């Protein structure tokens, strides 16, 4: 019996080992190494790396570009997520019913999700092009002057927000479709017998029952919004004057263009902390959700 238990422990670890090695090599080790690197200066031929402690983090808090890219990330999340969720709920309600052309509608809403961000940016680049672009051509019909949407610091972020909503709403729709399918059809029948309006039914029955879905989407969309940077390579390269720059893109620039690994590490640690706090919030809310049920 003792032999059996030993065998079980050994076998369990043996099965887990390949995954463990890869996870340690590409998740845990780099997380710790990033933190350590952020405490040391960059090494060069004339000067070896030395311990600088929290100096890197002081630089970070004194760096106006850091604050700019961080606030851009927050604005992007605020501008994108609530609207995408609203649209996702509408889309899910439409597609969940037996409307004519239902699978066409589902394909139309979901297709942007299947496109790489680079391709999306290529297409939208044309929409936003000054004068010849689709947006300016359409607005021109109403006598509105041409704009350089992506070249102007005050319009570039809203332009990217609109594009991101287009890309993400259909993806969130999936989670609401899954949520709607768990709502018992008897509730709809009961509401109909009671003569409850669709609007009423949505707010009193469907919306509260979808609340856990909304929390889930909200937190995951927030986490995901920090990873969405691909479009910047095509659209703006973070410009003009960092007006559309984001944390992860700034990390990329700092490490691979300015070759400042120490500072890139400090930025990465900040991003990791931000994600950790969000993920902890998720655990907290998920606990609540269990009580809620």
């Amino acid at each position, binding site marked *: 019996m003792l032999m059996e238990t030993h065998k079980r422990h050994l076998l369990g670890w043996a099965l887990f080992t390949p995954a*463990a090695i890869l996870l340690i090599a590409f998740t845990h080790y780099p*997380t710790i190494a990033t933190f350590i690197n952020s405490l040391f200066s960059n090494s060069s031929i004339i000067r070896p790396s030395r311990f600088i402690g929290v100096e890197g983090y002081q630089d970070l808090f004194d760096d106006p570009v850091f604050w700019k890219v961080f606030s851009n990330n927050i604005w992007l999340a605020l501008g994108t997520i609530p609207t995408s969720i609203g649209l996702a709920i509408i889309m899910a309600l*439409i597609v969940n019913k037996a409307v004519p052309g239902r699978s066409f509608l589902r394909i139309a809403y979901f297709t942007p999700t299947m496109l*790489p961000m680079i391709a999306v940016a290529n297409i939208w*680049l044309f929409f936003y092009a000054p004068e010849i672009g689709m947006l300016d051509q359409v607005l021109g019909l109403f006598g509105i002057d041409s704009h350089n949407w992506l070249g102007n610091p005050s319009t570039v972020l809203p332009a990217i927000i609109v594009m991101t909503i287009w890309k993400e709403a259909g993806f969130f729709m999936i989670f609401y479709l899954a949520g709607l399918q768990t709502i018992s059809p008897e509730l709809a029948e009961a509401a109909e017998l009671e003569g409850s309006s669709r609007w009423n039914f949505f707010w009193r029955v469907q919306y509260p029952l979808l609340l856990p879905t909304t929390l889930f989407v909200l937190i995951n969309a927030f986490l995901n919004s920090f990873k969405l940077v691909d479009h910047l390579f*095509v659209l703006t390269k973070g410009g003009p004057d960092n007006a559309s720059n984001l944390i992860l893109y700034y990390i990329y620039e700092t490490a691979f263009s300015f070759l400042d690994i120490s500072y890139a590490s400090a930025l990465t640690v900040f991003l990791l902390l931000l994600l950790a706090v969000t993920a902890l919030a998720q655990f907290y809310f998920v606990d609540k959700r269990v009580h809620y049920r």
Partner: protein
Amino acid sequence: MKRHFQKKLSISYSLELIGAYLLAALWILPLLYAFWAAFHTKEYAIHFELFAPLTLDNFREALSQAPFLRYGFNTFMVLAFLLPLQLLVSTLAAYAFARFNFIGSNIAFSLVLVQLMITPEILIVQNYGTLTSIGMVDTIAGIGLPYIASAFCIFLLRQTFKSIPKELEDAAQLEGCGTMGILWRVYVPLAMPTYLAFSLVSVSHHWNNFLWPLIVTNSVETRPLTVGLGIFGAPESGVDWSLISAATLMSVAPLLIAFLLFQRQFVQSFMQAGIK
């Protein structure tokens, strides 16, 4: 029944339907535009004439300017390398977590879940350093390596394995199956829907992945489609919307066609993967 019928024809229902189709039209408009521009000459890309002549020149031109076929092959190779390894490594780990209550398995599992939050995208700087030190920069395997151990896949499979009744395992044991035989004959076949769901999500994700492959690759032999397209779209090549649209369509076509053919499976997979 009659009331139901009347209700269906009511004005508010029609308005809803019109709204639904308008939204759908708005949602596919950008893609339709890309089709329009790709199949017309440059002049018609920016003004619309219904009967403008169609052409394939943009595709020919794009293919002559950049090796998109090679890029497509590279993307395919990344997936051919990555997906089987993802499934293999995750299957073993998930089996350990679902059925072997080994010492430290709870701590080990929470260390796995860390990767759900800290995805490889965020650790690009350090992981590039690791890749350099093991000499795997600019290789197909290097693109896939950080993604092989997938916390998401381990989590999905563990959930599935746990839901499989233990009696089946006991029965297989009686018939003489060993530990690995049970995994292969009982768990893996019964988890097929999960394997399919994860595979479709993973293929979609890695077909479209950009940042990490951009950092890792620097030659035509390894560059995947997204990176090739990202370089191609650079304004230095002059703004030719038809050409860019043709290149964009070629890059998204394989995945998009697969999605249109199997849209039900794709949507269901994303749903299944999302709920768990």
